[in-house]
């Protein structure tokens, strides 16, 4: 059953992150290029429609298939296979699943720029990545709240393709969230999402704060103005 679409009112992206995606490491940045980056980032924010869907499924149990642990969830045919996700979700009583997208407008603008202005395309692509990252943070925050409602703690998010969680998880994950109908997300034969600026992930709900889940930047109050982050590092090393 489809959940409700969450709309995220994101009016800024981390400029440091945009620059880092562009390979910036402290080079001299003249006024003209800096202005151009600002302009493209603003355009990305104006055409972007960050949206997402989250759902929570209970953990039904786990089994093993071909020597690989498989986590089964209740009320869905979604299965999470692999050693890395098994250890990430070890002890979880429920699993939050999220999908977010920056929207087809971002995709259309990327295509337009690929045909007309390739410098802007590169910058816009970085801005789009930063935007969908923020949308994913927002969806993760929504899961944190849903966990709290149940008196549980939400771990950090983990996406298909990380570790040995296979990309083949994507079709069922997207179907379970009705992402095609609700968000317009489609999947190619090579399991690539369109719009390309889309993210799927799962996060465990735990009865105790997960010990291995050091709070990431996404949960840090200083993330927007942190100088360490801007230079491409984090306080966690």
């Amino acid at each position, binding site marked *: 059953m*489809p959940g409700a679409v969450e709309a995220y009112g994101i009016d800024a992206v981390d400029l440091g992150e945009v620059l880092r995606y562009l390979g910036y490491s402290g080079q001299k940045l*003249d006024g003209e290029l800096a202005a151009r*980056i600002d302009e493209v980032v603003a355009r990305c924010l104006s055409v972007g429609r960050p949206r997402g869907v989250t759902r929570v499924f209970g953990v039904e149990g786990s089994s093993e298939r071909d020597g690989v642990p498989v986590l089964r969830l209740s009320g869905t045919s979604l299965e999470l296979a692999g050693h890395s996700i098994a250890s990430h979700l070890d002890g979880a009583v429920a699993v939050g699943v999220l999908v977010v997208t920056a929207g087809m407008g971002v995709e259309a603008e990327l295509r337009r720029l690929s045909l*007309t202005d*390739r410098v802007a395309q590169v910058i816009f692509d970085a801005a789009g990545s930063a935007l969908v990252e923020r949308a994913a943070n927002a969806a993760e925050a929504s899961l944190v709240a849903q966990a709290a409602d149940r008196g549980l703690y939400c771990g950090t998010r983990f996406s298909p393709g990380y570790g040995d969680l296979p990309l083949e998880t994507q079709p069922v994950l997207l179907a379970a969230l009705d992402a095609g109908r609700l968000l317009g997300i489609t999947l190619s*034969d090579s399991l690539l999402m369109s719009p390309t600026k889309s993210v799927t992930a799962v996060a465990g709900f735990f009865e105790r704060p997960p010990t291995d889940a050091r709070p990431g930047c996404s949960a840090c109050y200083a993330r927007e103005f942190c100088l360490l982050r801007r230079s491409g590092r984090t306080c966690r090393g």
Partner: protein
Amino acid sequence: MAEAVRRDELVLRRRRVADADLSSVLAGKRFLLFDGAMGTQLQARGLAAGELPELLCLTNPGEVTAIHTAYVTAGADVVTTNTFGANAAKLGAAASVEEVFQAAVACARAARPRYVAADLGPTGQLLAPMGPLAFDDAYELFARQARAADAAGADLFIIETMSDLAEAKAALLAVRENSDLPAVVSMTFAEDGRTFLGTTPEVAALTLSSMGADAVGINCSLGPSEVIPLVERMLPWTSCPVLVQANAGLPRVEDGVTVYDVGVDEYVAAVERMLGMGVTIVGGCCGTTPDYIAAERALLDARRPAPRHVRDCFAVCGPQRLVSLEAGQVGVIGERINPTGKRRMQEALRSGNHDLVMGEAIAQERAGAQILDVNAGLPEIDERAVMCRLVAELQGVTTLPLQIDASDPAVIEAAVRSYPGKPLINSVNGKGESLSAVLPIAAHYGCAVVGLTLDEDGIPATSDGRLAVARKIVTEADALGIPRHDVVIDCLAMAASTDQTAPRAILDAIRAVKHELPGVRTVLGVSNISFGLPFRPLVNATFLAAAFSAGLDLAIINPESRRMMDAVDSWRVLSGEDASARFYVEHYAGRTDAVGAPSLHGDKSLASQAPSDGEGARSEDPAERARSLVLEGRSAPVAEAVAQVLESHDALYAINEVLIPALDEVGRRFEKGTFFLPQLMASAEAAKAGFEVIRASTPAADAATSGKGTIVICTVHGDIHDIGKNIVRMLLENYGYDVVDLGRDVPPEVVADETVARHAPLVGLSALMTSTVPAMAETIKLLRERAPWCKVVVGGAVLTPEYAQMVGADFYAKDATETAHIAGEVLGR
């Protein structure tokens, strides 16, 4: 593509309609009630999220029939089969399309409804050009469903929840060409009144009903109140019945359960308003239950279909924009995308580097064009392939509808078949051969068509002669059911310098066509009139004004010509189209005839006024200045500086002593890390502006800036990331290589074909995902077989030197500058 249209037979084929009542539904004289949600009901019965609901037709037919039966009992005329996602791509190995449709139709029939509608939902993949699924592949998925549903005994089709007009079109064509059952097509819109891909209700209605949908409509996504303003916009643009199947409001999650917030009474009140507006087919979508359908039944039984007001005007559209002309309005078709007599455009079409074409499209739109003519007619190219690629790429840069300009019917058909919208075809003429080849294409694909007043005897000299040819074309079009407002007659301008009676004959012919063939529109390519005369724009503009006065509807002109747009804009004041002369006053106040008057629709300012902080950028020596400006990445000043260099030096000096050394320095800085990516690209772009100036200076210089050899590049099959590839292309072009950019998601055979055809010594392949690295290996393997002489360089985020070796490449390039080094090694600098 499927076989070429079986011409007249297909166009005129009758629908197989179940009974007389359904015929009156399709004539708009009777209501039809569909069922409500299937998915919501299945989930309420315990379907797990992510499972394929269609398989239940096979594994649990009783459950599916029980849902259908509940809707029939509630009073639904039609039940919709549980086949929304039953295409070969989604079903995979789980079941065959045929067995699912057989079972699904049987489940539906068992509920004893009046009619069974076979449900076709989206493929689940995004179609080209934005996505990787080819139009023809989408068509094949739908065609298999259509054949299966027809064989299983459905009464009609419902194609629904479409957000991509191209996909809706593929589905409708698949049904039309594989079944003679009626088809309803419904799209889904978001709160902003557009589908996820930007299509409006007007565009959907016009395109799909022109193509022969038996009913069009709106379903899913929104509640009934939100649908009302959208269906109001849709109704005037189609003469066929309109369907609405709204959700029971917007979903929200309560205690982990999805609930919909619009109850039966509120739902039915909104439906009643829509019936009053002229909607005749209703039902329900997500969240609706048999209770909603029962209430709609009661509503329909107490009412009769309301009268409709459908527009009768010339209208064409692209996927996002509809352009229409009411009586008395005039329109501008931009003529610039045409290689005839344009050397640079010819080169662009030959090389596949379409920047110039995209630039022309943008400039014409900005100058006021409302439709863009697209012509790819060059003898030595594959016109069909180039036309299709141009049409796809133009959709990325402009929302203007296109006019497909070709003489070969096969080229026209290939282009209009997958065009997401209603295009204009240019053209048919009075020759028997042309009439029988082109008009059926216009009819089958629902296009408007330009008819040239010439036939086997040439262009008649008199207006009566032209009228006679026009009449012949219109009679044929009438017979094929092409509406009069979709036929646009071109009375053909002839040179006044050779025959001064010609202009009057043309104007008389326009008047005669408008008078004698009511409903038909006229179009004219104006510029021939001034052939052989000096200062042609003046003659063209004067004649254009006279033609408007005679009743001309559409002018094919160069909208970037100031004088032509002056004539258009001022005529619109005189005709009353520009109400209160608002546009004219806003744009022409303060205008004089002085040379260099500022351009009307806001041309790009050429020179960047930003001051520079670099010393060299202010140097007296233009060569020094150009080098510094390239390093600063400032295009417009580089162009100026290079123009100055050329005043005292030749092209080779400007290339080898100015631009190339500057680019080398950019590359060094990038490698050392003192430049980052956007700086590298801005510099490449600035250098390109310099090369453009050199190229434009003399044809000899043009040769000097290229000719170092051909490099074929692309992103491999399955991968649509093209940023890295685009950066590489910019750099290689700067260094003077002929870069053939095949784009993204390119099948191995295409790479091999092009490499062989051009005998390219170097091929560059890019892949950004591990899942597409095998496609890279496959491409290289094919190249080794078919083009053993060529070297292959690979790059992309996931690649490493080890991967490169594994896939069999000759070179691995970690970034664009390294690719340029490798090109230098293979082809010479």
